[in-house]
């Protein structure tokens, strides 16, 4: 009984599903952001898990791409939280359903 590559992918799939559920079904806007972060984490884990199934030269790519993905997630969290602050100042609410002033 050894660690199989499929276990890592199943774990990434479970965490991605939980992150997607959190992002879509929770109403608090902080939980929406946290769900997006969780889903991004799961995709990074899937990248690393698949990179380990490749031979030596190609497996380095699986180390480098998640680094960029983490940096993009940092930028996303920065802008997203600034937007939350901006909208919260106008609406006095963190319920995502009240953020509907672009509905027309």
């Amino acid at each position: 009984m050894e660690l199989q590559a499929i276990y890592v992918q199943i774990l990434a799939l479970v965490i991605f599903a939980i992150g997607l559920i959190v992002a879509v079904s929770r109403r608090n806007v902080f939980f929406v952001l946290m769900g997006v972060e969780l889903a991004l984490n799961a995709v990074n884990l899937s990248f690393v898990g698949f990179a380990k199934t490749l031979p030596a030269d190609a497996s380095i790519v699986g180390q480098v791409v998640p680094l960029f993905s983490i940096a993009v997630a940092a930028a996303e969290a920065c802008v997203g939280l600034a937007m939350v602050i901006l909208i919260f100042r106008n609406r006095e609410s963190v319920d995502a359903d009240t953020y509907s002033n672009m509905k027309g």
Partner: protein
Amino acid sequence: MLALIYFIVLSIIAVGSAVCVLLSRHPLYGALSLVCSMVSLAGIYGLLGSPFLGVVQIMVYAGAIMMLLTFVIMVLNGARDSKTPMFDKVSLFVIPAVIVLAGLVGFAFVRSSFDFDVATIRGSVAITSKTLFDVAQTGPGYFVLFEVLGVLLLSAMGAAVLLAKKRLGSVDSEKTEDKH
């Protein structure tokens, strides 16, 4: 065998704290559960042979991003909004849909066959940085992407400052605005 035991323990912690994020009521508890999940994912990265990525995960995700999130939760005082229901009727349709999607993808995973390559190399700091900063003409050229990411982070920081600032302009213009 030992690797499998470590993996099972870390994955139970990761999935359990992810479920805590789903079910917790206050965003601060959710953020702390998310930090726990990210640290255990960093352990799994180390287990899989990418220690550099695990360290970056702890520094950037569990350190910087979650610090920012916790800070904003505390500044905005989300506890004031505890009357907001956790779920609404849309969740009744979303949750089965996501579970069915995950089941389909998991079925495809189980049917396919892939396994760890024994010749794969450990993603240490030396080899990762050598690939990342390979400025040779025939190299992969990741350093260009790295520079672009620097510009992206800088512009994100500028955008965040512009968005979250209460009133734009110099000290003089703020004074005149106050006067009127």
